[in-house]
């Protein structure tokens, strides 16, 4: 079997590599930069219809279990965040809404803003009390720096126990390896612990770490910090790709291709002024005048050449694919669904 090249190591790229690798394909994932998947909240706002069971298999993790259904959490601003899938400590189910909340923050650190959130929660009828713990940590240093030892955790447990109320609302800063700390804290102070639903921080990175581990387990090779800079298309198929990283430039034969390069935000699609363009100059992009929803044109998952013909061995998935129904902050389900469609298309070929 010839190699499948997956371009982009965000949710769409990693889920498709997992699916392909499990079916026995040799898969190479090439990825650069921080994918938007790592910037997300790590929660799926709706069920990825066609493939939710597969997605759940893919995201199965004992250390950071996922919960699904009608879930609600509290965003870092204190506003309600509704979703279908989240890590267990981020949300509650239909019956579990907190009656009162203690919002824990660290003085002068932007990880969580107790007074702000308490006030916003108050307006929603949730009784909330701010608890600001002393800190001199600079704002650009993650909170993990304060939690290098047991003592710090015990300190928080003690402080929290001094307050009244139900749920404890905490900043989201734990890595996938340390996620168990939340269970520990819950047992220690006998209160439900709820992490703030937070973009651009630990939760997205955790999700990405989990997905990478799963793809590697399934047999995919991940080439990090490299960029696919050009592709050749001959007789309706992608033939070769140039991969660059550091001082190395490599040309490889491509059996099949999954384009999962993400949207304009991560330079997956190029921008000419406000117009979306294909950086490879090979495939058709439908712009619709909308940076978020525009992207590669696809036919049943497969990419379309600039002249309008379906490319036999190339499929597209995730943010780089045109998706007229996508909104801000909810692209992960689409990344999963389109990856599923892309893999079906390639395996059918």
């Amino acid at each position, binding site marked *: 079997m010839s190699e499948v090249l997956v371009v982009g190591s965000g949710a769409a790229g990693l889920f498709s590599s997992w699916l392909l690798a499990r079916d026995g394909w040799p898969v190479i994932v090439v990825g650069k930069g921080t994918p938007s998947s790592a*910037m997300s909240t790590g929660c799926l706002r709706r069920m990825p219809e066609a493939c939710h069971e597969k997605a759940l298999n893919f995201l199965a993790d004992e250390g950071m279990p996922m919960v699904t259904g009608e879930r609600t959490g509290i965003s870092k*601003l204190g506003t309600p965040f509704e979703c279908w899938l989240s890590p267990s400590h981020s949300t509650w189910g239909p019956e579990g809404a907190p009656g009162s909340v203690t919002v824990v923050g660290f003085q*002068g650190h932007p990880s969580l803003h107790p007074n702000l959130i308490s006030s916003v929660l108050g307006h929603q009828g949730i009784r909330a009390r701010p608890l600001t713990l002393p800190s*001199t940590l*600079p704002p650009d240093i993650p909170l993990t720096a304060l939690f290098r030892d047991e003592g710090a955790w015990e300190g928080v447990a003690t402080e929290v126990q001094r307050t009244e109320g139900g749920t404890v609302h905490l900043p989201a800063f734990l890595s996938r390896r340390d996620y168990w700390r939340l269970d520990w804290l819950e047992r220690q102070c006998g209160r439900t612990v709820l992490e703030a639903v937070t*973009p651009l921080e630990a939760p997205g990175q955790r999700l990405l770490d989990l997905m990478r581990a799963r793809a590697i387990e399934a047999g995919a090779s991940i080439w990090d910090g490299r960029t696919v800079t050009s592709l050749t298309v001959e007789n309706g198929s992608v033939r070769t790709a140039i991969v660059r990283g550091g001082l190395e430039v490599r040309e490889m034969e491509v059996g099949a291709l999954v384009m999962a390069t993400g949207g*304009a*935000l991560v330079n997956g699609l190029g921008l000419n002024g406000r117009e979306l363009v294909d950086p490879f100059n090979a495939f058709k992009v439908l712009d619709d005048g909308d940076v978020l929803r525009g992207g590669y044109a696809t036919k049943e998952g497969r990419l379309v050449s600039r002249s309008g013909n379906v490319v036999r061995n190339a499929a597209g998935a995730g943010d780089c694919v045109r998706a007229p129904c996508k909104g*801000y902050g909810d692209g992960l389900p689409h990344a999963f669904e389109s990856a599923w469609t892309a893999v079906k298309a390639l395996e059918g070929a």
Partner: protein
Amino acid sequence: MRKDVLIIGGGATGAGIVRDLALRGVECALLEMGDYCHGASGGNHGLLHSGGRYVVTDPPSAMECAKENAILRRTAPFCIEGTDGLFVSLPGDDPSFADPFLKGCKGSGVPAEELTAKEALSAEPGLSAEALRCIAVQDGSIDPFALVQANVDSAREAGAMVRNHCRVTDMVLEGGMVVRVKALDRRSGEILTIVPEIVINAAGAWAPQVAAMAGCEVAMGLDQGSMLVVDGRLCGHVVNRLRPPSDGDITVPNHTATVLGTTSRPAASPEDVAPSRNDMELLLRETSAMLPALRHCRVVRAYGGVRPLPGRGGRGASRTFSLITDERAGNLLSVVGGKLTTYRLMAERVSDQVCNALGARAGCRTRTEPLGPPADEAGGSVALARLRRKYGFKATTVSLADQRMLCSCEQVLRAEAQMVLAGPDALTLSDVMRRTRAGMGYCQGLDCALSLQELMMEAGGTEPLASLTEFLEERERGQALASGDQLRQEVLRRHVLQGVYGLGERE
């Protein structure tokens, strides 16, 4: 509340007047409906004119600018960067304009010196190699927010009452005189009643509306102009086009950015400030002819302002100012026109007339009395110079015990925001931003808005969502035109604010 003088409008003109009068010992008050600089004083270029721009078309205005430029450099050095300015002509510009320009400079007392092409390039290396003639003048850049706030602080210190977020809503007349003025205070929701001897209408583009409250008319042309803020200082001087005043003539380096301007079109109302996509393209095209690096710059934001011009307005209208009285309301004096650069002179003239009417004798002190210290006085630290640049005399009240950063784009300390929040003027997030510059950088507040709001809550703020929404909407305004990297930044902002926090409409 009785006051000798009530000033309506807290732009540069109103703030200058209240300070001038207060320093002369007149009991006065100023009410501003938004924050200071809510009007043209916040929606301008920040160019401290040398006068050069007007020497050919409007010499009286040029003379005023030249004199005031020199005075402000002395009295308000903290908020002025003495960048100096260049006027350059390019192929296609009328070559015969340079000579009357030089002659006009001489006639209007605007110091000017022609440079050779080589001298020009060594002074401003980013200048187009095609530049034909180049004349150096004493333009500078000025921070209007800091300038106006310093006037307000100084007026308060001299005993004046100055309030922002108080909108004048009604005037009651008796026997051809304004006897009572009512205003709505946004902080308390209460109606304030002031009983003034004299009312000064310094409401800029809103002057006709304010005059109408007293049954008077003020003729005024409203003219909108757009500006672009680009990331980084892409020139060392103010760079102007050496041609009759036209669109896209000026680039001003200011703080961490360069401001490109400006355009001119009739405005439907004082609020009609929005720049168009055409304006933006025109500004980039025209200014990059002078400074080619601007072709590849990152446009952070577009904004606009409405010029209150006397008479019918338009590019041709004079930039001098006039004082208007009307017998239908004998104690109402309207002041219209002028420039930011000449605000002090306008204030002096108005105050002279007011003192005359009140029989007060004291003379004007603003020609010499300092508004703030030089930013980089010998012996001061770099940190202090940075603070002085924004806060003038108040810089020393910023506590440096906690030196943590609040806004990393603009390098603003938490302590700066805390100092501003402890003062009487900050009601909204935008108020803090205008004073500290937090949120003005290329992430447009994404990084610091929540931290800033938390500080506001600690200082006793309420309604955080309304406050944040107002702030973020304002920052978003210029983003409809974003492209390239700034558009990427905008996508990120929307993912966070709209997608995750649920602010604004979810599409």
